[in-house]
């Protein structure tokens, strides 16, 4: 009985992490669709990421309730809860960014498209490494560090790409200031996803030390 419950909980946690990982891929495709003016596909991916966000939310609540009602992992449940909530922020950020693209429909000049694409790729890589670190925390705490440094690497890379993009946008002579601010806003929004992944990594770094026997 006790192992049946444990197995179910393990599967739910794996599924939660799958949702985060999948939402990263969907986000990248969505951004690509938008930049290529494939709006039907873009909207489809927006719906898909909203679905993933909802499912991840449900899984998170379910796991948290079970951890507390069954008094499971009493030593680490607070840490697990915090990790799940901060990871949920990452999906929320990605969903909000696609949603704002859909609402505001910013016009992105041709020359900035590669910059946005690169930024989205780097941000998604930081998300993927974050998920690997979370999986390692669950099963193999010694390996967490190997992924954390990659999360930090891609977060820095995203900051650099976002800064380059913003500099290029503001050095343009053809755009209005309002348009520049609009474009900067999206560069900032995409970059924030990597910042949220870094928040998860910061927590993981501490919780992993606590998790050692």
């Amino acid at each position: 009985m006790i192992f049946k419950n444990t197995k179910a909980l393990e599967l739910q946690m794996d599924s939660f992490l799958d949702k985060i990982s999948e939402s990263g891929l969907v986000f990248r495709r969505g951004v690509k669709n938008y930049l290529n003016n494939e709006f039907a596909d873009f909207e489809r991916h927006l719906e898909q990421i909203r679905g993933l966000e909802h499912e991840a939310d449900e899984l998170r609540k379910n796991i948290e309730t079970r951890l507390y009602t069954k008094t499971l992992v009493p030593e680490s449940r607070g840490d697990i809860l915090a990790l799940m909530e901060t990871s949920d922020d990452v999906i929320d950020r990605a969903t909000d960014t696609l949603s704002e693209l859909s609402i505001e429909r910013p016009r992105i000049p041709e020359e900035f498209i590669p910059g946005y694409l690169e930024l989205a790729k780097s941000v998604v890589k930081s998300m993927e490494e974050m998920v690997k670190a979370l999986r390692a925390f669950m099963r193999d705490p010694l390996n967490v560090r190997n992924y954390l440094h990659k999360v930090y690497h891609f977060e820095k890379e995203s900051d650099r790409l976002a800064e380059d993009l913003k500099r290029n946008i503001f050095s343009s002579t053809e755009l209005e200031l309002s348009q520049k601010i609009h474009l900067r806003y999206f560069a900032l929004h995409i970059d924030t996803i990597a910042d949220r992944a870094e928040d998860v990594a910061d927590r993981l770094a501490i919780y992993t030390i606590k998790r050692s026997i």
Partner: protein
Amino acid sequence: MLILLFLSSGLFLGWSLGANDASNIFGTAVGTKMVKFYTAAIVASIFVVLGAVVSGAGTTHTLGKLGAVNMIAGAFMVALAAAVTVFWMTKLSLPVSTSQAIVGAIVGWNLFAGKETDIHALTKIASTWVMSPILAAAFSLLFFIIFKKILEKWKIHIFRLDAYTRIGLIVVGAFGAYSLGANNIGNVMGVFVSVAPFANIDLFGFTFSGVEQLFLLGGLAIAVGIFTYSKRVMLTVGEGVVKLTPQSALIVVLSQSIVLFLFASKGLETWLLSHNLPAIPLVPVSSSQVVIGSVLGIGLAHGGRGIRFRVLGKIASGWITTPIIAAVISFISLFFLQNVFAQQVVKTAQHTEIEQPIQTEIIPHG
């Protein structure tokens, strides 16, 4: 009825053992919410009684060799002196152990009765007090290394590890409670063994000896102590003094249980002797000091950081002060019981007059 009155000091010792020492076994598990208090209390009570009745004879025999208290009033006072020592030293926040108090109280009775204390038995007992925490630290260090390697190799999911640890804490806790009962029942009931007037009872083809009945009573007193008072001690242990992860707690309880078992198991002693190996003396040791040794082992595994050597020094001083205080209290109170309350606390040797014809027969032979 009078017998129960005389046994009351031993039963009180048992109650105090249950109240305090059960926390050494289940304290971290209950304090960290890994095991519910009632689960811990039920498991601990059942196994402590089993340990006492099935395997309690070994350590009791060693205490008997130190000094055979031969009147029930004397036994009452010896146990009471030990209980008072434990209570008083606990009040003063001094490290104290029932095992060390009872040994001191027995020596006090020997002094009062004018009987020689078996120095060989005394040194054997005292050396185990020093040995037991060291052995526990060594076991703990060894298990820590093994557990760490296993966890690194098997990559167990955090939820599954939690389930394994819970089961481990209950199973090892049951073994710990059994070992505690086996090792420490001698402290509680040992002095009454030769004076308690319990007759053997035959039940379904099994003989339930007088000594086993006495140990059952002692075991039940320990169980009452566990149910009535150990919860708050467990919560203090779990939350305050030493912060252990559930896995470290499991290692600590396992090491402690093994040490208590080693110093209590007659079966193991027989096996070692039959294989021409040196036997481990069967002596009641302090479970609190053994648990401190186990935690020290975990500290050493972490590189020795945060070990408070002053605490260890205080424990070592208790090895000397506790028996001395108990011996003095025992001696004085035996004097009062005999001279103020007119109770016979020492059985004096019976002299029978030899008849005249026999005297004439044996005197020429010297």
